[in-house]
C-alpha cells in the first residue's frame, strides 16, 4: 500500500506541521497509509494521540523508510532527498530557483517534487493555494504585531481624559497578506491607507473599507494577476511620492512581493527616519530582501525613532491556524495525484504540470532547468 509520510520539520523555529489530525482522514480515504513522525505536530498543538485517533501511524524511528509520498512544509535538505528511494514524491514549499542544490539532488535521485509555490493560480486550484493560505495568516499577524508594538491605541476614543486619535496605518502591497492586514487594522479602528501597483488593487483596497493612496504613477500588471518588477526610475518616484504618507504614519506594514524576484524596496532608511518616535514598521518581506531598507528578518531593529520588525517565517508564528490551512492545501493536491491508492501523475493536468519541479530525472521547471544546465 502506498505510504504517505509526514516528517517533523527541521527548520529552526518552525512550528507548523504539514498535516494536522483533522486532515488525516482525507488522505486515508484515498486508500493510503499515513505515517507521522512522533512529536511532529507538537509545535502546532497537535498531539501524537490525536494523529493515532485520526487513523495515522505514529512513527518513532526513521520516518522516511518505505515512504512513497513525503508531505512537508519546508523543503527537505539535499542530503535527505538524495537518500530517498527513487520514485518518491515530495510535496512541500520549495523555492526552486533559490534551491538548485536540492533540485539537482532530486533529479539525480529520481525523486518527484511538487512545489506548493508553483501551484498555478487558477480557479480550480484555489483549494491548494498555499501561498494564499499562508499569506492570510501572515497578513493577520502583521497587523497584530503592529498593534501590539505601537505605544498608542489603534482606535479613536473620546474619553473624559481627552480624545485619543486613531492610529494611522499605511499598508504597502495589497495581495492576500496585505488585504488581510488592512482588514485587521481597520477592525481595530485604525485609519488605514494602502497602496499597490496592480490596477485592480484600488478597488480591492476600497472594498476593505480602507483608503487607496492615489499616486500619479502607472500601474504594473504582470502575468497571472501578479505584479511586475519596477524599473529603478519608477521605484524612485514611487518612494518619493510615498514619503509623506510614511512620515505621517504611526505604523507601516509592507507586504509587497514579485514572484521569483527579490522583494521590491519600497521604503528607504531615510523615509523611516522621518517617522515620529514610537512608530512601528512591520516588514513582511524581510526574508526575501525586505520592502524596508535595513529591516532584518526575525529581528526588531531601531531605525531613527521607529522600531522595524522584520518578519521571519511569519505564518509559523501562528502555527495552529497556519498548519490547518496548509494541511488542507496538501490534502487537496494529494487528491489530484493519489488515485485508488497509487501515485498517478497526470501531467495533462495543468496543476500537476505547473507545480512539478522535477520528475523521473527531468527538471520540468524551466528557470531551474536553465540555471542547472547553465551552471553545469
Amino acid at each position, binding site marked *: 500500500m502506498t505510504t504517505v509520510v509526514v516528517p517533523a520539520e527541521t527548520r529552526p523555529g518552525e512550528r507548523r506541521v504539514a498535516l494536522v489530525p483533522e486532515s488525516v482522514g482525507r488522505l486515508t480515504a484515498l486508500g493510503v497509509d499515513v505515517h507521522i513522525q512522533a512529536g511532529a505536530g507538537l509545535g502546532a498543538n497537535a498531539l501524537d494521540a490525536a494523529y493515532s485517533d485520526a487513523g495515522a501511524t505514529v512513527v518513532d524511528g526513521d520516518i522516511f523508510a518505505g515512504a512513497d509520498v513525503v508531505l512537508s512544509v519546508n523543503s527537505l535538505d539535499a542530503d535527505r532527498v538524495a537518500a530517498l528511494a527513487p520514485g518518491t514524491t515530495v510535496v512541500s514549499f520549495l523555492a526552486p530557483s533559490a534551491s538548485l542544490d536540492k533540485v539537482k539532488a532530486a533529479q539525480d535521485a529520481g525523486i518527484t517534487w511538487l512545489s506548493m509555490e508553483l501551484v498555478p493560480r487558477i480557479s480550480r486550484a484555489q483549494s491548494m493555494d498555499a501561498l494564499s493560505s499562508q499569506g492570510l495568516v501572515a497578513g493577520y499577524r502583521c497587523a497584530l504585531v503592529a498593534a501590539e508594538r505601537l505605544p498608542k491605541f489603534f*482606535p*479613536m*476614543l*473620546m*474619553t*473624559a*481624559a*481627552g*480624545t*485619543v486619535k*486613531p492610529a494611522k496605518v499605511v499598508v504597502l502591497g495589497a495581495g492576500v497578506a496585505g488585504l488581510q492586514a488592512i482588514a485587521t487594522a481597520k477592525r481595530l*479602528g485604525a*485609519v488605514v491607507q494602502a497602496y499597490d501597483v496592480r490596477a485592480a488593487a484600488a478597488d480591492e483596497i476600497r472594498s476593505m*473599507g480602507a483608503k487607496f493612496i492615489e499616486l500619479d504613477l502607472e500601474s504594473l500588471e504582470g502575468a497571472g494577476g501578479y505584479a511586475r518588477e519596477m524599473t529603478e526610475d519608477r521605484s524612485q518616484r514611487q518612494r518619493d511620492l510615498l514619503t509623506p504618507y510614511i512620515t505621517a504614519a504611526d505604523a507601516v506594514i509592507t507586504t509587497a512581493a514579485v514572484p521569483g524576484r527579490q522583494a521590491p524596496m519600497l521604503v528607504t532608511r531615510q523615509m523611516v527616519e522621518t517617522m515620529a518616535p514610537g512608530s512601528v514598521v512591520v516588514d513582511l518581506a524581510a526574508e526575501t530582501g525586505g520592502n524596508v531598507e535595513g529591516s532584518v528578518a526575525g529581528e526588531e531593529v531601531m531605525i531613527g525613532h521607529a522600531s522595524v520588525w522584520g518578519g521571519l517565517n511569519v505564518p509559523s508564528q501562528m502555527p495552529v491556524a497556519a498548519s490547518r490551512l496548509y494541511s488542507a492545501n496538501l490534502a487537496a493536491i494529494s487528491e489530484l495525484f493519489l488515485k485508488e491508492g497509487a501515485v498517478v501523475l497526470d501531467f495533462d493536468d495543468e496543476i500537476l504540470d505547473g507545480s512539478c519541479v522535477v520528475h523521473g530525472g527531468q527538471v520540468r521547471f524551466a528557470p531551474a532547468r536553465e540555471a542547472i544546465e547553465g551552471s553545469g
Partner: protein
Amino acid sequence: MNQTWVQLAYLAAALCFVLALKGLSSPKFARRGNALGAIGATIAVVVTLVAEDFDHMPAILVAIAIGTVFGVPAARRVQMTAMPQLVALFNGVGGGAAAIVALVEFLSAGQDAGFGELTASAFTVLVGSMSFSGSVITFLKLQGLMTSRPVVFPGMQVLLPLTALVSVGLAGAVIGTQSISMIYALAAVSLLLGVLFVLPVGGADVPIVISLLNAATGVAVAASGFVLDNVLLLIAGTLVGASGTLLTLLMAKAMGRPIGSTLFGALSGSSSLGGGEASDRPVKSLGPSDVAVMLAYAERVVIVPGYGLAVAQAQGALKELVDLLGERGVEVSYGIHPVAGRMPGHMNVLLAEANVPYEQLKEMDEINPELPATDVALVVGANDVVNPAARTPGTPISGMPIINVDQAQSVVFLKRSMRPGFAGIENELLFDPKTQLLFGDAKDTLSQTVTALKSL
C-alpha cells in the same frame, strides 16, 4: 349664468378641493395644495354670487367683508402656539354656519320640504350646532380661558347620553311635525350636547377632538348640500368628513391613544388623564415620521448618542439615518460626550462598528459652540450627558460639563420611557417646551424614522 356652467364651475371647485387635500398630505406640495384649496373656494363663491340675481346683495357683500375682516388678521397675527385653538374656533363657526343654513332653509321651505330634505335639515342642525358649541369649548380650554383638565361632574355619565337621546328625538320630531319651535329646541339641545361632549376631554387629547369636530362639520356641510341640492357642498363636505375621520384615527394612533378612551375615558373613569403628575408635567411626544420631517427640513443637526444607543445596538440604523440626511444636504455631526456610555470611548467603539467616519465625530468642546446654530439636536439614548441639572449645584452630576443641547432650536429625545439615566436624576430638559420625545427602543424608532425619511 347658465345652470350647466355653474355646475361645471362647481365641479372645478370640487376638483380643486380634492387636489388641495392630496397636496396637503405631502410636505412637498402642502403649500401648493392649500393655495389650490383657496382658489377652489374663490371660484365657488364668485360663481355663486354671479349665478343668480340674489336679493339683499349689498348685505351679503357686507357680511362677507365683515367675515374677512375678522378672519384674516386673526389668522395672520396668531402665535404659532395658539394656532390649534384658532383652528378650533374657525371650525366652530363653520359648523354654526351649516346649522344656520339648514335652519333658514327649513324656515323658508316650510311645508314643501320632502322627507329626505327634512331629515338632512335636522341632521345638519344637530351636527352643526354640536360642532359649534364643542369647538367653542375646546377653544376656551386651549386658550386657557378655562381649565384644560377633563371636567367631570356627578351625573354626567347619565346626562350626556340623555342629551344625545333627546336631540335625536327632537330631530325625529322636526321631521315628523315640521314644527319651527321643535327645530329651535333641536338647535339648543344640540348646543348643549356639544358642550357635554367636549368637557370631559383632557388637555392632550384636545387635538384629536378638534379633528373629530372638523370631520363632523364636514358631514354637516355635506348634509346641507343634500338640503340645498348643491353638489359642491355635498362633495366638499363629504371630502372633509371622510378625510377628517381618517385623520382623526391616524392622529389617535400616532399619539398611541385609542379613540374611545380619548373621548369617553374621563367619563368612564378609565383614563389616566384625570389629573396627577402626568398631566401636570406633560411631555410632547411625536412619531417617527415627524422626526423624519423635522430632520429633513433642518439645516444643521447634531446627534448626541449615549448608553441607550449601545443597549439598543442601534448604531447601524443611526448611521443610515445620518447618511440619508447627508444626501439631502443636511449638515449632520455627532456630538460625543467624553463619558457617554459606560466605558471610556464606548461611543467610538459603537460608531466605528457602524463605519461612521471619524470626521463626523466631534468632541464636546467642539460641538458646544455650534449648538445655538443647530436646528435639531437628536439625543439618542443619552440622558445624563445632556442634563442641564449639571449646571446647578447640589445634584449628583453637578459640575460635569454637558453637551448643551438645550441651546439648540429644538431637541428630540429617543428613549423608551421617562426613566432617568445612570445618575438616577430627572432631566428637566424632557419637559422643556422645545423638547419632543420619540418613545421606543432606539433601534426600532431609528429605523422607522429612516423608512419615513425615504418616503419624503
